[in-house]
């Protein structure tokens, strides 16, 4: 009896953690991969995983804000491509200084955010439709402008951002990881400890109640759209710097990776709940799962299956939580 109670308490505590949905498979996968492959936990491999995760993470932060505020954006993959192409073209074809090209790319991302915000908040299109439209527009701009050809060469000093790192002894910590983690820390703080974060939660938790309590819900969601656009473009810029060229099609499918990272990390698609630490773990999981499976020689063709199952598990836990709690209290 006594033991049962402890078990119950632990279970209750565990399901109360929002991020439980990702934590469990994350730990299991780490155990599995490290048991089957010596390389998996090596510093160089973990750096690799973290770097891949960093790209997902930066855009996911914006997406998470937006989902928490009660909307979402599937144009991020296309805006990611646009951001890279815009920055690269300005540097390579027009000779812009690096800072100006990057700034311009972020502005372009922001404009896509404004466009999405306008469609969803003013025209009142469903977010899926509006941002799908934007996705095609952005893709079209990208491929139309480049004729599908990569944009390069890029200045050597620009490549340093995506390829270089902070030297710590023999080890080099990639700038990309540092940038992503610093941004995650700032976003996590903003979400939990600022009035802006509270407004995001209120707008997504019950938009009408929030509006009646004086929360400018339209403006709040609008700002999250703009932020998402800017961050998607920034991710594209960093990716161009990492691979040495801007590829117009690189962002295809990225939007789903980002939404998956958010959802696996415990961001509730219905709005009003979630955390940045969840997004960090979700992004890490998405990067780790393909890396680990490749290392233990699971056919790449099967990897999506695992991602799909984890996604379903993580989300189910969110919806089952109340039922589990109710049955525990009975």
């Amino acid at each position, binding site marked *: 009896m006594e033991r049962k109670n402890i078990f119950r308490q632990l279970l209750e505590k565990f399901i109360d953690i929002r991020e439980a949905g990702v934590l469990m498979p994350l730990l299991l996968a780490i155990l599995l991969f490290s048991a089957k492959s010596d390389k998996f936990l090596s510093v160089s491999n973990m750096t690799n995983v973290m770097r891949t995760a960093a790209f997902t993470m930066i855009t996911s932060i914006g997406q998470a804000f937006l989902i928490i505020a009660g909307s979402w954006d599937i144009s991020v993959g296309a805006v990611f491509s646009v951001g890279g192409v815009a920055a690269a073209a300005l540097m390579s074809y027009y000779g812009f200084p690096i800072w100006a090209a990057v700034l311009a790319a972020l502005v372009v991302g922001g404009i896509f955010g404004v466009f999405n915000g306008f469609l969803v908040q003013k025209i009142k299109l469903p977010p899926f439709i509006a941002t799908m439209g934007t996705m095609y527009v952005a893709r079209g701009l990208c491929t139309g402008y480049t004729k599908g050809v990569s944009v390069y060469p890029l200045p050597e000093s620009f490549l340093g951002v995506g390829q270089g790192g902070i030297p710590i002894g023999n080890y080099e910590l990639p700038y990309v990881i540092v940038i992503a983690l610093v941004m995650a820390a700032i976003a996590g703080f903003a979400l*939990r*400890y*600022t*009035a*802006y974060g*509270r*407004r995001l*939660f*209120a707008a*997504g*938790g*019950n938009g*009408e*109640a*929030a*509006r*009646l*309590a*004086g*929360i*400018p819900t339209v403006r709040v969601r609008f700002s999250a759209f703009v932020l998402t656009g800017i961050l998607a473009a920034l991710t594209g810029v960093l990716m161009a710097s990492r691979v040495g060229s801007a590829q117009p099609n690189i962002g295809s499918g990225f939007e789903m990776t980002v939404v998956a990272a958010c959802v696996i990390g415990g961001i*509730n698609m219905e*709005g*009003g*709940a979630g955390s940045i630490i969840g997004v960090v773990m979700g992004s890490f999981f998405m990067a780790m799962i393909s890396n680990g499976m490749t290392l233990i020689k699971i056919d790449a063709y099967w990897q999506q299956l695992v991602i799909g199952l984890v996604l379903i598990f993580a989300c189910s836990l969110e919806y089952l939580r109340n039922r589990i709690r109710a049955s525990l209290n009975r």
Partner: protein
Amino acid sequence: MAKTVLEMKGVTKSFGATKALKQVSIELYEHEILAICGENGAGKSTLMKVLSGSYEFGSYEGEIRIDGKPCVFRTPADASAAGIEMIYQEISVHLDLSVAENIFLGRVPLRAGMVQWKQMNEKAKSYADMVGLKVPVTTHLRDLSASQCQMVSIARALSRNPKILVLDEPTSPLTDAEVEELFKILFRLRDGGISCIYISHKIREIKRLANRVCILRDGAHVWTKPSDELSTGEIVEAMVNRKIGNLYPKETVEIGAEAFSVRNLRVRHPYNRKKYIVDGIDFSVRRGEILGLVGLVGSGRSETVNAIFGAIDGSYDELRIDGEIVHISDPRDAIRKGLALLSEDRKVNGFVPTLNLARNITLARLDKVFRRGVLDREAERKFGTDYIERLSIKANSERDMVTSLSGGNQQKVVLAKWLLAEPKVLLLDEPTRGIDVGAKAQIYQIMTQLVRQGMAIVMISSELTELVGMCDRYLLLADGKIRAELGREDADEERFLRICSGSNR
């Protein structure tokens, strides 16, 4: 003696400990319109949900007989198959489908999986003619007026060959002329052999329309009498007949300067753009005063406070707060200028379910817990615990989720949010709906304290007793206009009901 079409015998329906219906029996004859009247919460809708199969057979006690045969309705489809069709207050049609498609919704004639458009449109035409709908059946409902949409719902009901038609407040979205049209149709149907049950609290309508009137009060059947023997007074008296207890801690406080006034407030009807649901209202309220807005559902009382608060679109010539002319653009603006609105439906827009108690309480005044934009957790905790104590909210801690509290305590959380906003004028829309007597009494206590401190309160309630108990002055609304203004000494439920149901005109 007319033939009995429908008999409901000894119907009792409970929700937990409360009995919504107690041994109610009604009979409906052939060629008859039977009106069922009662105040809000008297059990009219519950009775009709039993009849329509919305409450499954077995979830209530009692018996339903049609043409003398006992019936078992497990779903609304069963009731429909037995010849009972419902028409609701809210227009329930599909705006992007044609008249014909709406009439045959769910039963579109098919041959080999293909819709038989010609056949459907021809049949639909005959039903449209029956209700006097003179538009092509291929017209989309979006292009029709509110009354024409209501006609389509009736045509749809008729297409299922009903014996009995139940209409629940069908006239609330309609203008006077449209109501006349509806009545003509109902008379024609009655004479053609379809018996009707007509639910309404508009006594003027009932007396014209119904052959007999059945009164429900507090879930019990009071009497059923032929309508031509009845006076308006008799009906009202039977509907009300309650004594005011000592639930109401009304104190005489000093009435101060004018806190709020509005001139020529107008709000358009959401479904019927030609109609104003609030049609030129002027009023003012003073510090220390509780003003009651009295009116039936659909009288425009809720829209009045919502438009003032900027929650819905409305227009006015002039609005003053503390004597100063102001303009309010949205709720945010309203809060800043000293207004607060406790809205009607707590569960829909009263609180944010994903935020805890303290965070809901501080939601309207984030500036009080975020110093220079950064959360002061101690302040948040303190506001939470303070209001839990001040309003005696039953909760374990300020971090409890609002959804885990009882209705009365949820309502106190919502009230706490508005008190923290320190309004000059507090607008209360149904502040005690769906909460138990103990919590009600506490909310009345709080209201009394607030006016003692000089706040002005505007209160809306469907419970006339509580208005009589708590307010200093009353504005009686009907059809979007002020019909009378009464002082506390003239407050009387019967009088309210008579004026608001339009039977004085």
